[in-house]
Every structure is written in structure tokens, then in C-alpha cells.
């Protein structure tokens, strides 16, 4: 799904993946209590009820990380650590996971957090009658059972090796909400969320600010450090950065499209740039049922005409990291050979010549400065290979329905940062899936996807996913431009902001010097 920043990643891989900078957790004892932290966000949060909002966007993730807790969290090395769950274990076939929950935890409304609450959170999202968009990410979980007050058992249809890591992102699927609260508040629950987290929602004016106050009864004694967190939607990137400079905001969300300000902040000793290299990528799908993309020569030419390093220079002063597969450096899927087609403008021209007809098509582009810039650069790169792309600007809400109804020739999409590639890869490429945008069907691809899904062995799965990447790259039904990289900029006085795992800016453990 498009702009939903979510990300997970397997622990051991973070040891491999490098991080550019960031204030990482400092030793205990240095923390200072008190004060207010103001966060400048990109988007106006619609709410927290999964049935209403479906999936959280990046701004909602930040709020959710403060109001709610997840069962599992990640430590500085990216290893799963206990949070609301104290311990976990799995069956030999990885089809069952059992979690022991932390005793004595209460929601902000005073009701107890227990196995029943976990089950109710899950059941509500899974219930087909609720038609929750959030059900997409829990499709492989068959059921959740409670064996006693503090033990929950997750049952899976296929082996789920990375389950604890997938539970760490503060998404609508993972955060624990108070069943009593959503039942009693009904329609109003969405904007009056109740969790177990370190901060309690005090007030919220749509479009202006959300004020979170310290939870005095938080189960993790001594935390949190700040008295108050204020989340403000500052939609304009320029004035958001200006607000950081002038002191209205202590920390702001940013992205590589705003490269000038990121580069400026990196040189400014009063500012700290937080960045995280996630898995997944910005991707594009072509409709293989219609000309010109029903011809593999055209598809390959389109990909081979892409000069990603140059494109990165143009769109983000070189900050964007080129992608040659859908997994990225942040993923545990590492391929010796991902089958990426090389940049070869001459070969692209030859393929187009071989095709014989003029290649013209329309690409959907989001009507944002970012969308326009990327669209124009792609157009330019393809023009050099003799391919004519016309930009069709539409708003975000138009792209999704048009993609699902296959009313496009080429559309942008995103593979988001998830700890396991399966949910997205299966949905994006298996025959018959609503998200299989390319309309492309290949028994071999289906077989590999099914095998990767039903295998527990990590090496075999890696091999499957690399084979999948080779197949897709060769057929060029989708292509990838840049890997996901996340940015936040803060005042240098802000400390204790963890790495932006899963692309989430989590300020719930921060303090100000």
C-alpha cells in the first residue's frame, strides 16, 4: 500500500545494515526528566480505530508509539525484546507462537491488559464482517487463543519464523487497545484512543495539535522522561523545517525529497539528523495486458533505460539509494544474483527498435511536488531511449481505485518495510490477487511464492525470493527505483530517540537536555 510507512526487519540483519547517524540510546543515568517535546509531523492523523482508519500512516505510528504498547519491541541492535509480552516460544514447524504476557499492566481507563484483550484486538480486525483494511497484514494468522489469563497462542496457516519481529512496529495491527474503551465509546473511540502506553491522550484539535501527557502509572517505572509530547501536523516541508529552526518544533519528520534541508541540517551542529535504511522500495507496476507493455521487449527497455544514480542526483541530491530488487539492503533476503537488468541505454534503444512501433504510454503520477519531480525525471530518462511517457497527474485517492480496477498503463506503488517479505510479495505477484497489478500470471512464479510461504528454512526461503526477484526482473513486470530510507531532524538537545526501526519515529523514550 502506498504511503503507509511500516517496516519491520529481522534482528540479525541490522548488524549488517549500516546506519548513517542518529542519537542512539545513551547509557542509563544520563536521562533528564521533565519538559515538553514538540514533534512536527507530515500528516494530519485521522484516528486510531483500525476499523475506521485501516492502517496507520507514518504520523499515526509516532502517536501510537506513545499512547500504546506492542507485545514486542526492538533493542538498539534490532533484536526483539519483551514489552507487553515477557517471553515467547514457537512450535517446531513455526505454525504456533505462544506469548506470556506481562502481569499487572492496566489500560489508561483502568481496565486490565490480559490475554483476553489481546484476543479481542485480533478478533475484531480479523472478523470478515468488519471488512478491515488492516486484515491484509494478518491474513496468515488463523486464530488467537487464550490458554490462561496471561498466555496467548497464535495459530498460523503457514510457518511464520519472524513473527516476534513483525510484532514490533506500532501499527494498527500490533498496538494493544482497550476493548472496553472501543465498546463503550463507539464512533468516538477513533479520536479518543485508550492504550497501555507511556503517554495518555489529553487533548486533540484536528489539524492543529495532539497533546499527550505522561502516564504516571506506566508499568515501566521511571519512564517516560518527558512530561508532555505535542504532535503537530505541519504539512508544508519548507515551513516544517523553518519551525525546527525557529524553535516551534523540537523534532520533525522529513523525507529525502527535502534533500536540501537534510543536507543543511547535517552540517548544522545545533541539529541532529536521524536516518534509517529500511527494507522495501519505491516501485512501479505496468499493466501487461495492454500494449505496449504486453511485449517483454518494451518492458525490458523501460527498465534498462533507468539510470538510477543520476536519477537520485536529480530528485534528492543523491540521497536516494538505488534498488535492484524489492527487498533492499534492510531485508534479510540477500541475493548473490537478483537478476537486475543493467542500465544500458543502447540495449534499450535496440529493444525499442526491434519492437518496431513507437512506444507511448501514460504513467499515473501523484499530484504532489515529489510526484511531479520523479515523474518528470523518469519521463526524461525514457525519452533518451526513444520512449514517450505522458504524465497523468491524479490525486492519491484516485491512484488506489485505478490500480485495483487496472485502469492504468503504469502506476507508482510502494513495497513497505515489513519484517517478512511474504505478505506483500504474495499479494503483489500471485495470480488472482487484487494487488497483482501487472495482471501477469506465471505458474513458476506462483509455485515459488507458495513454496516461500510454506517453508520455515530461512536459506531455502532466501533462495525462493531470489529466484522470484530474478523472474520478475527478467520479465520486467514491476520495477524498483529506490530503497526506503527514513529521515527525521531534531534539535541536538533531543536525546534518546531510538533508531527509526520500521520507519517509525518513536519519541516515547526521548528526553531533552
Amino acid at each position, binding site marked *: 500500500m502506498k504511503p503507509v510507512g511500516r517496516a519491520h526487519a529481522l534482528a540479525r540483519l541490522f548488524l549488517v545494515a549500516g546506519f548513517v547517524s542518529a542519537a542512539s540510546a545513551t547509557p542509563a543515568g544520563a536521562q533528564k526528566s521533565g519538559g515538553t517535546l514538540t514533534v*512536527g509531523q507530515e500528516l494530519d492523523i485521522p484516528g486510531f480505530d483500525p476499523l*475506521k482508519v485501516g492502517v496507520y500512516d507514518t504520523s499515526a505510528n509516532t502517536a501510537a508509539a506513545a499512547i500504546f504498547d506492542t507485545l514486542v519491541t526492538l533493542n538498539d541492535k534490532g533484536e526483539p525484546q519483551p514489552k507487553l509480552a515477557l517471553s515467547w516460544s514457537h512450535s517446531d514447524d513455526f505454525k504456533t507462537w505462544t506469548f506470556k504476557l506481562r502481569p499487572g499492566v492496566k489500560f489508561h481507563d483502568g481496565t486490565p491488559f490480559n490475554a483476553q484483550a489481546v484476543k479481542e484486538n485480533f478478533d475484531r480486525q480479523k472478523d470478515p464482517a468488519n471488512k478491515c483494511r488492516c486484515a491484509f497484514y494478518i491474513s496468515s494468522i488463523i486464530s488467537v487463543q487464550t490458554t490462561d489469563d496471561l498466555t496467548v497462542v497464535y495459530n498460523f496457516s503457514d510457518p511464520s519464523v519472524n513473527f516476534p519481529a513483525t510484532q514490533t512496529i506500532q501499527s494498527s495491527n500490533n498496538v494493544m487497545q482497550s476493548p472496553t474503551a472501543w465498546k463503550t465509546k463507539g464512533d468516538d473511540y477513533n479520536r479518543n484512543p485508550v492504550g497501555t502506553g507511556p503517554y495518555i491522550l489529553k487533548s486533540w484539535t484536528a*489539524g492543529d495539535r495532539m497533546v499527550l501527557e505522561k502516564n504516571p502509572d506506566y508499568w515501566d517505572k521511571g519512564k517516560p522522561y518527558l512530561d508532555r509530547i505535542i504532535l503537530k501536523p505541519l*504539512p508544508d516541508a519548507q515551513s*516544517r523545517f523553518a519551525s525546527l529552526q*525557529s524553535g516551534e518544533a523540537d523534532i520533525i519528520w522529513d523525507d529525502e525529497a527535502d534533500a536540501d534541508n537534510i543536507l543543511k541540517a547535517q552540517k548544522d551542529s545545533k541539529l541532529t539528523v536521524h536516518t534509517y535504511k529500511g527494507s522495501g522500495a519505491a516501485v512501479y507496476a505496468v499493466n501487461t495486458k495492454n500494449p505496449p507493455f504486453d511485449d517483454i521487449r518494451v518492458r525490458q527497455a523501460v527498465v534498462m533505460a533507468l539510470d538510477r544514480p543520476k536519477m537520485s542526483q536529480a530528485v534528492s541530491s543523491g540521497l536516494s539509494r538505488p534498488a535492484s530488487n524489492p527487498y533492499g539492503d534492510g531485508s534479510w533476503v540477500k541475493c548473490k544474483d537478483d537478476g537486475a537488468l543493467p542500465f544500458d541505454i543502447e540495449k534499450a534503444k535496440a529493444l525499442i527498435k526491434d519492437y518496431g512501433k513507437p512506444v507511448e504510454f501514460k504513467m499515473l503520477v501523484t499530484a504532489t511536488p515529489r510526484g511531479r519531480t520523479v515523474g518528470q525525471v523518469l519521463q526524461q530518462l525514457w525519452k533518451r531511449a526513444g520512449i514517450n511517457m505522458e504524465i497523468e497527474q491524479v*490525486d492519491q485517492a484516485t491512484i488506489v481505485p485505478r490500480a485495483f480496477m487496472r485502469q492504468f498503463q503504469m502506476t507508482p506503488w510502494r513495497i513497505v518495510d515489513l519484517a517478512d517479505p511474504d505478505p506483500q510479495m504474495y499479494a503483489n505477484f500471485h495470480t488472482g490477487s*487484487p494487488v497483482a497489478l501487472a495482471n501477469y500470471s506465471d505458474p513458476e512464479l506462483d509455485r515459488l511464492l507458495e513454496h516461500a510461504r510454506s517453508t520455515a528454512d530461512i536459506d531455502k526461503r532466501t533462495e525462493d525470493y531470489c529466484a522470484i526477484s530474478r523472474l520478475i526482473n527478467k520479465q520486467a513486470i514491476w520495477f524498483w527505483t529506490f530503497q526506503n530510507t527514513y529521515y527525521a531532524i531534531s534539535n541536538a538537545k533531543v536525546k534518546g530517540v531510538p533508531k527509526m526501526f520500521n520507519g517509525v519515529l518513536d519519541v516515547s523514550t526521548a528526553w531533552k537536555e
Partner: protein
Amino acid sequence: MLFFVARRLLYLVPVLIAVSVLTFVIASLLPGDLAYVILGDQATPENVAALRHDMGLDLPIWQRYFGWLWQILQGDFGRSFRTGQTVLQAVSERVPVSFELMIFAELIGLAIGVPLAIACAAKAGSAFDRLMTGSAFGMLSVPTFLSAILLIYLFAVELRWLPATGYVPFTEDPIANLRFMVLPALTLALAEWPGIMRVLRSDMIAALQEDYIALAKAKGLKPSRILFVHALKPSSLTLVTITGINIGRLIGGTVIVETIFALPGIGRLLVGAIYTRDLIILQGVVLLVAAGFVIMNFIVDMLYAVLDPRIRHGHA
């Protein structure tokens, strides 16, 4: 007079009905099936059909329109499918912000425009007059999205006099509220004063040519008295008009300024509703705003009738 008021009130009814039809049609025209927007990855054909049925999207448009109108007549404007906020909640939260912004902007605009207009009218054709008329166009051709960010850089980042973004309700802290409002209001006012100045200037120049001014001059009245009392006073009616028009135009038109300065106003609400296809909010808010505009015009008309008796007997 009573008859005049009644007739004007009666006239509002068809206008409001037409506004509601237009609102509904425009909202329905927006591309992107709402069911797909809500369902996202879960958009299987069965789910889409079921949701469309639940939301009544499978009914013909006129049936949906009357259903919506019937609810509104009962005072129920509906709820956002995304946020769960009711239209009335959303509007009552946001209208004060936009309203204050408009009033404030208009006041600054008048404060710049009126003195300049008087000065220019007094010396029409002089170098000063030409310079000011020229700068007025200069300001007109600086788009607000550029002047906004320039003002932020100057007053918030460099001089640190005013905050760059944000908002505090007036009731909470009047001083802070004004500090937050200065830059956005100034940005709008920079685009407003040229219009005010132009209209008032030409009006006054015309007035200064009238016979009674010549008479006043002949009687030996002080030039300043002629300028302010005899020329400005008749032009004040014009001023009321432009101010009214400007405020009306600003309703929902402040979205750029609201976006850049992160003000929680009505413009951002509406544009956000379009982008997320939050049709209930869009229809409800547009209808309320349009009704507000129509009613304000009605009030301006009434004011006129009070100020100028010719209108209520004339052809208005």
C-alpha cells in the same frame, strides 16, 4: 422595508437549494470509488459490492441526494468515515480559525490600503501615486505561497520575532494567539491591500471631481477636511462592499496560507476531504460555508438598504 427583507429572504431559498445540488453533484463527480478507497488491499469484488450497498453508493444519485438533504433538514450533517468526527464538530472547531484569519487579514489590508489610497487620490498622477500603484501590482504578482515562506524566513528564522507555524485559540491565550496569527494574516493582507487601494483610490478620485467638492473648495474648507469628510465618506460604502467581497472570497480560499502556517482552518479541512474522498465532510462543510456566504451577502444587502434608501425602492 419589511417587505424588502421578506422578499430577499425568499430569494435565499432557491439559491440555497441550488447550492446544495451543486455541492452534491460535485462531490459525486470526484473520481475514485469510495469503496476502493476505504477497502484498500481488501478490495475484492465481493467486499466492494457489499460496502457499496452498506453505504448506499449503489442507489441512483437523486435518491442519495434526497436522503442526504432529508438528514440535513433534520439537523444531521453526518460523520466522516475516516475520523468519526461529525460535520458540525469539524466545522465548529475550524471556522473560528479561518474567521479570525480573514478578519485579521482584512484589517491589516485596510490599514495598509486605505491610507495609501487617500494619499494617492490626493495627489493623483504624481510620482508617489504611480510608485504606489506600481508596488500594488508588485504585491499582486507575488503568489502567497512565496510571500509566506519569505515572511517565515525573515520574521521567524532570522529575526526570531514571531513563531513560524502553529496556532493557539484566542480564548486560551489572546497574546499568543495574535502572535501566531500575525504572519499568516500579513501574508493574506499583502495580496489584499492592492485591491482595496485601487478601488478606493479610483472612487475617491471620482468623488473629488464632483460638484460638491468644488463647492467645498470654493467655500474655503481645509483640503484635509475635504479629503476625509467630503470625499472619503461617500466612498465608505464601496469599502464595505470590497471588504465583504474579499472576506467571502477568502472563505475556503485560505488553504495555501493555512497549509504553510499549519493553521487548523476550514480550507485545509476541505482540501483534505477532497484528497481522502471524505465526501460526507466535503458536502456538509461546503454546504455550510456556501450558506454562510449567501447569508452574509444578505446581511450586506440589508446594511446597504439601511445606509442607502434608494436601494430598497430601486431594483436591487
